[in-house]
């Protein structure tokens, strides 16, 4: 469990990257959404222990990440957008790096590589962006850390690889694992998410589980303007709307629509429904 208590982060210039974030992230796969500069990467870096909060505390299983003790760092891994290492191949990197992570599964690592069509012996610097990403995803998912933070994991991946990644992430889940995925391309991994965290201008505007959202909201697509919609958009001739939940018509969560709803004037209504309304 990741717990952030009143976490704020301010740069030396005074710019606030995160403001008073209070959240407990339970086990499961969570989507982290927000506009550019909302504080997503800052949040991930604080959880990974790369940044110290200016105020507040961030804990993983009750241990503060800012202390950077081996016992807590061995439970967390952040796969950032850019990642370099001195070894020529990802297998050699794994040989020296994985010794610090007690739950690393070597056979799963090779399985993941194989699924992506890689051997791990390719010279890493010579790989394309997509193949570099695949190598590192194969490794990260095999590390077996209780907390895995993925920053834009599908960047550079082809359609087939995105499908493989979906299966891998789903397959790597355990009862004690938390995966937070920060991505702008929600649709690639949409079916996986157990929860969503939304940031807007350094503040957290929503943190809810998918099941809670489904109990309170229904996401509809129609050809006519919706009557009882709390929020709707029109795209390609169809109306995408959010209405109060209908017990008979539970729908999948449209995270993109929910994100746009939370950016607009109807965000309070949406939030009230999620937090207060009984089905």
């Amino acid at each position, binding site marked *: 469990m990741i717990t952030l208590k009143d976490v704020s982060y301010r740069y030396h210039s005074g710019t606030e990257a995160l403001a008073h974030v209070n959240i407990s992230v339970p086990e499961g796969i969570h989507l982290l959404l927000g506009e550019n500069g909302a504080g997503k990467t800052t949040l991930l870096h604080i959880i990974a222990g*790369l940044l110290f909060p200016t105020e507040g505390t961030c804990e993983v299983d009750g241990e503060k990440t800012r202390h950077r003790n*081996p016992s807590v760092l061995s439970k967390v891994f952040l796969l950032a957008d850019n990642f370099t290492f001195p070894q020529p191949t990802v297998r050699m990197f794994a040989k020296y790096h994985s010794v*610090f992570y007690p739950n690393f599964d070597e056979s799963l690592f090779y399985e993941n590589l194989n699924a992506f069509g890689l051997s791990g012996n390719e010279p890493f610097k010579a790989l394309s962006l997509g193949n570099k990403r695949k190598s590192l995803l194969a490794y990260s998912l095999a590390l077996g850390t209780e907390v895995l933070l993925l920053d834009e994991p599908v960047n550079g991946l082809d359609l087939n690889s995105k499908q493989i990644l979906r299966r891998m992430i789903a397959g790597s889940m355990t009862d004690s694992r938390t995966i937070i995925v920060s991505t702008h391309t929600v649709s690639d991994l949409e079916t996986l998410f157990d929860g969503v965290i939304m940031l807007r201008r350094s503040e957290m505007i929503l943190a809810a589980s998918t099941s809670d959202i489904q109990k309170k909201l229904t996401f509809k697509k129609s050809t006519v303007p919706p009557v009882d919609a709390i929020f709707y958009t029109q795209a390609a001739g169809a109306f995408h709307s959010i209405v109060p939940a209908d017990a008979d018509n539970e729908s999948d969560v449209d995270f993109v629509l929910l994100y746009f709803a939370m950016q607009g004037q109807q965000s309070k209504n949406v939030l009230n429904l999620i937090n207060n309304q009984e089905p």
Partner: protein
Amino acid sequence: MTCMTNTDNFSFARVMAYGNIYSPWIKRQLVFTPLISLAVVMINIMLGFYSFGLPFIGLVSFIPAFMVYFGALVFAVGTDPAIETMLPVKWSEKALFVTVYALVVIPLCVNLPQLIVEVVVRPAGGELFDSNIYINTRNMTFGSFNTCLSYVQQLVPASVCLATIMSLTSKRIVMPVVWTIVSLVALSIFGAICGILGVFKYGIGKIETLAESQSANPTVFINALMSEMQPYMMILMGVCVIAIAVFVWLTCRSIKTRQL
């Protein structure tokens, strides 16, 4: 794969495993550094047999010195500060490894082959290794203050290089090189000031007289001059030790408090 302990107690096994993160560069450095150092000594000895050799001896001697000064660059080549920071290794373990490696291991790899040649090979080789131009260091007292000072002086730019690498999250090769050169210049200026003060204190006339009387044996002259300069060399030694301590402290602080 053998897994490291993830307890929060200090672990020497983790210190060594941390060093492996920098493979293969660190292993290559440990192999090539003593070999290059040995090659430089042998080249210097050969150059000593030729009248044109002296300036080249000076130039070639820069190589082992630079290997010490820039030894810490191995921690910047191809590495990601984020991976280093996220590693489940205590900051004290990281600091111990990088400091001992850059300020003890690499200087040993550079200086030990040279010492072995001077102490073992040259005496054994006799006239084969003697030359008119290459200063016969066999007659200098090893372990003397000035020899220690030359080793300690090497560590000042080496510690600057290390501290700069550990404090930066970008430009981790260019900026350490720049700051190391700055520290070398500063050290040279300080050393020159100490030398000038010593010369004026001793008296230029006396030095000329000493030089004339010892002209047949330059080694004795140098030793005599150095012993007169001792107080200023002590000041230089003190400044070097303090500088090294400060930069080691900065290295530890950078590792402990690094944010990305």
